[in-house]
């Protein structure tokens, strides 16, 4: 026999062992030597968290009450593992690439990172998990009581009966022990569930401890089974005979209930927060699923194989009314096998603790991530993003959540007083938890699923579950007997157990049918009717097409290889020397000898910050994530990258604009320079020309004046001739200077016009007279006096100067034998044209664009002009608002002077 204290001591020792295992595993993982921690066997064993105290104790109880029905709970997961292996693989892949931390996170992330959905799933999970935790606490305390009250073997049955009677009077001692167990579990979970700062939310120590517990509970159950079959019944044949003789044989299989239970356990295997935690979040490698797909069903088979023999033998050997849920412990105890009973108790203890630990980690992650953190961030107003110690806040939130969740379970236990048979609490929890199934499966297989659809489905399912199953489970405390039978306000079709008149069904099946079907329908209909946001659409594509998006499976753990990849990438971005220096510095900080540091969070953050300086924060995060996490780039990353590149594009567009402006300025400068150069050349040419024009007459003047001065023997005729040459050249010089000044004044725009009124005929008359002065030769001028009667308002003197020039040119250059100059006046409507046409050779076509330039002279220097005449004419006409141009198509030289209309007044 063993004392209560002795049992508690064994429990403590066992817990200490678990601490040691977890501590060792964590340490090994941190030092990067935990390769064996990530073996597929550990993964498979960790899945056994599915088998809680409910399965450990309850399966035998269920078999004793309902025959083989307990098998459904094992069949569901087995079907999923074997038949839906690919669904799990998809879930694991999505969980990996999207850094999913919980079911709530999965649903929220899929539906456009909706926090409302996350909160909904979290609340549902808390609600569904709490009774389950209570169940575990209850199982531990009840099984403890079996020992504590045990003085003699005969008393056991009575105690067991008492404990199972459910009259709500749990002894104070059991309430205390439940509280102590709850505290101990919370402590363990806080220490090993939140010590890991790893962003991947993976807990090597916890997983290892769970795996050890899996072995313990399987070993315990099988030990009891072996004892029962070979120790009590005397062999396989005898056992089969005993089964044949037992009442179990006569129980019928209820088809509907079976199908419902198989479906429920299959769905729960995917949706339960703790299952999602070990299946997806803690998954080290999706290839482990391959092993688990056969190893886990095998585990379940071993767990279930001795259930019926134990149940049958228990019913046979123990007094009628003994609680079948406790046969696993009471049977060996009744047979005096205290050690075996203790082992069996430890098996149950393991089942309970592993469930509570994992479930509280899973639920607390949801609570802290989706409820506490958003609230905290809102309350602190975004200061968190500045302070950097947000990790600390997350951990604190998670620790508080763990303690709260476990204590919530404890209070539920204390309040309900262990009032219900274990199995039914489990089923109620299951139905609640699987309400997320439509949203999860729809989310990963159907791109049309929307956030509103998921919300609608979840809300409908959760409400129906609460109404038809969860709330009624509290008994008359919440829904009175009358309410249950007649429905609210006497509305029969709203009765919780007979919704829409569907009465006479198993309440569990009734609730499952209505909640799941209406959940799925609401989800589908609202999804079809609503429109997804862009983020939802992108996330939907990422989730549904995860295998196209995420390449091959990559392991979380690559150790040094990762660091090398990081170094290569960093060298590309930071430059070789700087990158190596950074890595060496980090390695020194970690106390490592080589140049490659461990890819631990601190280092990665530093690296990300360094890289962010070069490529922007979002890109840096995505790049590091690609290498370290094997994560695919999330939509938010992409959007952030797009933002950054938009900024870069804008910047480069600005640079381009500046560059365009610079080249435009350069072109303008080049043009200005060319113009200046051209002007400089022109100026040089002009000065050179002026020099030539001035020096030529001065040469004659100097030469002849020297002759006159130095020679005594000149004839009078010679003296007179030379003197007149000097005289003529002086006049030529004067005229040249006048012209130059005239042109200069005109070009500078400083000429003031003397506007007067007069007639065109007067101006021509004056010009002809002036041009003819001193020249008695035979240039005949033909005019049409009638057409010249045009009144003008212009600078008459300047106009006359132009005419004089043209007449003088005709006189100089017209080489006809009998030179004739026609002056024709034509009214063009908006302008008056005065054409000067002679009968000479005219100006050759190639020279016509040159004649108006300064110092351009036709062929030989015939008539001592400086070649400025036409240039001056052009300047004058510009000032007067008209033009002068060469008139092609005439036989001789022809010039057209064009006066604007406003210079010419209408003839009166």
């Amino acid at each position, binding site marked *: 026999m063993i004392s209560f204290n002795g049992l508690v001591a064994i429990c403590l020792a066992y817990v200490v062992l678990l601490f040691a295992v977890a501590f060792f595993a964590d340490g090994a993982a941190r030092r990067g030597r935990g390769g064996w921690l990530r073996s597929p066997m550990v993964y498979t064993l960790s899945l056994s968290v599915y088998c809680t105290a409910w399965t450990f104790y309850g399966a035998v109880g269920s078999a004793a009450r309902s025959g083989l029905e307990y098998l459904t709970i094992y069949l569901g997961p087995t079907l999923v593992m074997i038949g839906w292996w690919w669904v799990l693989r998809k879930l694991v892949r999505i969980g990996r690439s999207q850094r999913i931390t919980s079911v709530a996170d999965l649903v929220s992330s899929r539906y456009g990172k909706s926090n409302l959905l996350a909160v909904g799933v979290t609340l549902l999970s808390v609600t569904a998990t709490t009774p389950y935790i209570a169940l575990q606490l209850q199982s531990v305390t009840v099984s403890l009581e079996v020992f504590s009250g045990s003085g003699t073997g005969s008393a056991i049955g009575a105690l067991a009966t008492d404990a199972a009677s459910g009259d709500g009077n749990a002894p104070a001692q059991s309430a205390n022990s439940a509280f102590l167990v709850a505290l101990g579990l919370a402590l363990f979970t806080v220490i090993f569930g939140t010590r890991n700062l790893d962003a991947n939310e993976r807990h090597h120590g916890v997983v290892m401890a769970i795996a050890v517990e899996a072995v313990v509970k399987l070993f315990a159950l099988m030990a009891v089974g072996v004892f029962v079959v070979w120790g009590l019944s005397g062999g396989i044949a005898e056992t089969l005979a005993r089964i044949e003789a037992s009442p179990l044989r006569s129980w019928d299989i209820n088809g509907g209930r079976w199908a419902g239970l198989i479906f429920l356990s299959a769905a729960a295997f995917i949706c339960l927060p703790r299952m999602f935690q070990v299946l997806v979040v803690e998954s080290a490698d999706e290839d482990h699923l391959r092993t688990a797909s056969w190893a886990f069903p095998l585990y379940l088979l071993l767990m279930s194989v001795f259930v019926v023999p134990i149940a049958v033998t228990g019913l046979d050997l123990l007094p009628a009314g003994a609680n079948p849920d406790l046969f696993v412990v009471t049977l060996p105890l009744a047979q005096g096998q205290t050690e075996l009973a203790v082992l069996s108790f430890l098996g149950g203890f393991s089942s309970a603790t592993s469930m509570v630990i994992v479930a509280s980690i899973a639920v607390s992650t949801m609570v802290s991530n989706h409820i506490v953190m958003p609230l905290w961030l809102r309350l602190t107003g975004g200061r968190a993003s500045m302070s950097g110690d947000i990790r600390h806040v997350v951990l604190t939130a998670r620790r508080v959540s763990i303690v709260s969740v476990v204590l919530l379970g404890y209070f539920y236990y204390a309040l309900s007083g262990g009032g219900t048979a274990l199995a039914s609490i489990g089923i109620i929890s299951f139905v609640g938890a699987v309400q997320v199934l439509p949203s999860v499966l729809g989310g990963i297989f159907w791109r049309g699923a929307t956030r509103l659809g998921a919300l609608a489905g979840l809300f409908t399912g959760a409400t129906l579950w609460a109404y038809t199953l969860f709330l009624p489970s509290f008994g008359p405390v919440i829904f009175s007997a009358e309410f249950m039978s007649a429905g609210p306000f006497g509305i029969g079709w709203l009765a919780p157990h007979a919704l829409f008149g569907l009465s006479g069904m198993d309440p569990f099946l009734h609730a499952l049918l209505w909640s799941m079907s209406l959940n799925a329908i609401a989800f589908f209909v609202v999804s079809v009717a609503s429109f997804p946001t862009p983020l939802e659409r992108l996330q939907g594509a990422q989730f549904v097409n995860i295998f196209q998006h995420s390449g091959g499976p990559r392991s979380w753990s690559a150790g040094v290889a990762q660091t090398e990849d990081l170094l290569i990438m960093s060298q590309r971005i930071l430059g070789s020397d700087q990158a190596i220096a950074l890595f060496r510095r980090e390695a020194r900080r970690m106390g490592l000898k080589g140049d490659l540091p461990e890819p631990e969070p601190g280092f990665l953050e530093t690296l990300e910050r360094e890289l962010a300086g070069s490529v922007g924060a979002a890109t840096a995060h995505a790049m590091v994530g690609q290498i370290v996490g094997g994560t695919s780039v999330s939509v938010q990353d992409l959007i952030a990258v797009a933002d950054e590149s938009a900024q870069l594009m804008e910047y480069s567009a600005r640079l381009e604009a500046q560059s365009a402006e610079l080249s435009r300025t350069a072109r303008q400068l080049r043009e200005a320079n060319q113009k200046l150069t051209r002007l400089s050349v022109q100026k040089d040419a002009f000065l*050179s020309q002026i*020099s*030539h*024009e*001035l*020096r*030529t*007459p*001065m*040469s*004659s*003047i*100097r*030469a*002849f004046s*020297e*002759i006159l001065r*130095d*020679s005594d023997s000149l004839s009078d005729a010679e003296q007179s001739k030379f003197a007149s*040459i000097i005289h003529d*050249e002086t006049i030529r010089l004067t005229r040249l200077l006048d012209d130059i000044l005239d042109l200069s004044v005109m070009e500078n725009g400083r000429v003031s016009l003397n506007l007067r009124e007069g007639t065109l005929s007067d101006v021509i008359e004056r010009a002809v007279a002036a041009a003819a002065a001193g020249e008695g030769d035979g240039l005949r001028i033909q005019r049409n006096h009638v057409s010249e009667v045009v009144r003008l308002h212009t600078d008459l003197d300047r106009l006359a100067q132009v005419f004089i020039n043209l007449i003088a040119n005709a006189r100089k250059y017209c080489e006809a034998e009998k030179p004739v100059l026609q002056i024709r006046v034509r009214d063009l409507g908006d302008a008056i044209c005065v054409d000067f046409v002679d009968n000479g050779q005219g100006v050759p076509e190639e020279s016509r664009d040159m004649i108006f330039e300064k110092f351009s002279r036709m*062929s*030989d*220097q015939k008539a001592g002009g400086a070649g400025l005449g036409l240039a001056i004419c052009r300047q004058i006409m510009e000032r007067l608002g008209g033009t002068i141009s060469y008139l092609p198509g005439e036989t001789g030289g022809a010039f057209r002077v064009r006066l604007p209309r406003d210079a010419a007044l209408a003839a009166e």
Partner: protein
Amino acid sequence: MTKRLLLIEDEPNIIEAIGFILARDGWHVKSHTSGKDAAEVARRERPDVVILDVMLPGKSGYDILREIRADDSLAGLPVLMLTARGQSKDRELAEQAGANRFMTKPFSNSEVLDAVRALAPAS
């Protein structure tokens, strides 16, 4: 034997002045006003000295000089260049083209006379 001088110049008054001065000194002066056939005239006339104006209608004095220098039959023909443009680059151009002397208008009569005398082959 009278020395022969070819004056290539387009300004009539300057032809008259130089012609008068040199004739008085005993030169036989032949003048030509066009630039185009100036080198040909030089070949035909076989002068002892050439006075060449730079700015001529039809062809520049430099081109005519280069033509003369390129002609072996006119080897050693002394050329005095006259220019109305007194810039230093004109002098350089003249030297490059192979002018023996370079004078700027307006010139002094006695300088021209001295230059022509100096250029005339001693015989």
